[in-house]
């Protein structure tokens, strides 16, 4: 039996919904509409003139093999960031969940990196891995490994992935820990009495029961990797070496805000919007089926 609360008129529900609708319209629909509109023009930076080019911006972008290559870069980057930050967070959360003493301290410390702004995080990692004067690269040098992310594409990708994941681990950790603590102890104890080892319990009971959290984090982290990582990339690699770390959103940022090519930037953000929209639909359609609420 489902309980359903209904409103008599339409005035009150509208009033209650209004704030959310207004916020969405002002901060989402309006800018998205502007982006779509602008993507059809080549405007000059000062807004003095707009040249109508129809789908010219899209043609120009999709005809550029470097732009097409950055789809692959983005996919690799997003998967790596999502897997790294979620995997590591889950590992830490499982450990913290088992702690009896001092878990508060660990929890607090693990949450800290989330407070660091992306650009600052980027600078921190850059200092540690600076090719010549960084602490980490210096020790790597002692071990005989010549760290050089300004020329080595794989190392550059690794560095931006680690720097982007770092702060994100904290965020994911919080959710995983809450998810773990919501699993009834009795279920786990019952399995333990039946002779299930930790790993079996984790695989057959804990992980499935954690799936709503995991699914939520998957969606949120992919959106993060797609949209919020340009600060880190801008400070560490600026998209290089060559185009090894030029992900789609970084190109939107650098073409639009560094180079004032607003038409191309708008077209790119429309493309990005479509991709992330499609990705979210796919996630909800196929992965959510396997989620046990």
């Amino acid at each position, binding site marked *: 039996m489902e309980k359903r609360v209904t409103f008599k008129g339409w005035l009150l529900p509208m009033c209650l919904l209004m704030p959310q609708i207004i916020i969405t319209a002002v901060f989402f629909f309006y800018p998205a509409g502007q982006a779509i509109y602008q993507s059809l023009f*080549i*405007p*000059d*930076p*000062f*807004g*003095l003139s707009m*040249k109508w*080019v129809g789908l010219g911006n899209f043609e*120009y972008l999709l005809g*550029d093999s*470097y732009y097409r290559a950055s789809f692959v870069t983005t996919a690799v980057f997003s998967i790596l960031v999502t897997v790294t930050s979620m995997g590591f967070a889950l590992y830490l959360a499982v450990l913290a969940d088992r702690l009896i003493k001092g878990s508060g301290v660990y929890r607090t410390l693990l949450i800290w990196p989330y407070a660091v702004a992306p650009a600052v995080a980027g600078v921190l990692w850059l200092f540690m891995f*600076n*090719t*010549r*004067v960084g602490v980490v690269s210096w020790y790597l040098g002692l071990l005989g490994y010549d760290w050089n992310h*300004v*020329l*080595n*594409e794989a190392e550059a990708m690794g560095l931006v992935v680690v720097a982007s994941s770092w702060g994100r681990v904290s965020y994911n950790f919080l959710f995983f820990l809450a998810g773990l603590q919501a699993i009834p102890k009795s279920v786990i104890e019952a399995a333990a009495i039946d002779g299930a080892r930790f790993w079996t319990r984790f695989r057959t009971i804990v992980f499935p029961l954690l799936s709503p959290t995991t699914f939520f984090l998957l969606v949120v982290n992919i959106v993060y990797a797609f949209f919020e990582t340009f600060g880190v990339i801008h400070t560490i690699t*600026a*998209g*290089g*070496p*060559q*185009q090894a770390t030029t992900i789609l959103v970084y190109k939107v940022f*650098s*073409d639009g*805000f*560094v*180079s*004032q*090519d607003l*038409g*191309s930037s708008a077209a790119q953000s429309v493309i990005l919007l479509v991709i992330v929209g499609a990705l979210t639909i796919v996630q909800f359609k196929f992965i959510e089926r396997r989620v046990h609420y």
Partner: protein
Amino acid sequence: MKIKTLLGAFASTIALSSNAYAATEIQWWHAFTGRLGELLAVQIEEFNASQSDFVVVGSHKGNYSETLNAGIAAFRAGEQPHILMVFEVGTATMMAAKGAIKPVYEVMAEGGAPFDPDGYMGAVKGYYTTTDGDMLSLPYNSSTPVLYVNRDAFKAAGMDPDMDLSTWQNVGEALDELKAGGQDCPLVTAWQSWVHLENMSAWHDVPFASKDNGFAGLDTELMLNGPVQVAHVEAMGQWAKDGKFIYTGRRNEGGANFRSGECALFTESSAGYAGVKAEAKFDFEIRTLPYWEGAGNAPQNTIIGGSSLWVMAGHDAEEYKGVSQFLSFLSSSDVQAKWHQNTGYLPITNAAAEQTKAEGFYDENPGTEIAGQQMTGKAPTGNSKGLRLGSFDQIRGIIDEELEAVWAGDKDAQTALDSAKERGDALLRRFEQANR
């Protein structure tokens, strides 16, 4: 000293604010912090103290790109400053924005303040004037690339630090010897596109782009894949492969390596002088940028980097009068000479160069005159007047990517530069389309 300056600035700010209601305010948005920011603040201070009709207010708006963006955003919102500092890369963007700017020659003519555009060094002025000779923006800080030599590193490798390094042929031999002498970082550079392609082209009097490097029209095409440039990049690529040229990044990351004494040779802006002088714990020296013996018409002259001051449109005549007085003040030889001596930027007026010489600065600081000589040795040609390319920031990004492919050994010089031309031309066509 610092505290004193600050206190002075503070005191005069208070003094000024008491009668500020009478004075017209002139907004100047700039990109300088640290030492440069302090020196800029002193210029403003001196101007404000010298008269009572106008008050110049300087605001730091971030780095060069951020300052330009702030200016653009402000113009769109109708709240633009009177004066905006724009780096040389943004010159074509500003020039194309005819309704957004008020050309400096107009401001000066209307304002009536004393001003002599011909007093500027030809190679500096040329960058910011139209082909008709009208000055559009006021040159502010300009520098040109030179070669920094760590003399101690040469001695450590058992070499003569006075050896001739004027040609890349000689530098190549020096690199061999340095490497053989156990030097891990024989050569490092800053701003690779600016030094090794843009300036290398001008220095050899070969075109970087058609239509006089973009001065004569928006329908310009890149020509950076010519034989001189390809040969240079190829040699650099080989040095990178042999561990003689160490690549440290797209901007001036290499400066840290040179200043720490790790590297023997460093190609960097003359404005890096103050930093090297302050930090280097070794004997260093400044030489002219090397050229390839027998290639092009080298040595021609090198071109500038840095920024100029653009006057934004949409203000009152009275305010423009103040702007013209301030710009006139900035171009006076006292201000320019001081700026040149303190920063390592070029003495952009001829008078400032002569004054600096007369004061004996070059004798006390050998090497600081090199940049000026390199710029003025010959009258600039169509290939060495400067560059005026739209979307130039993005084009530099493309060049960086392609050069990295060469340094990493993924592409040969010809392929990389051909690709840079092709990709850059696409951007130039877009810019042409947007501004036709």
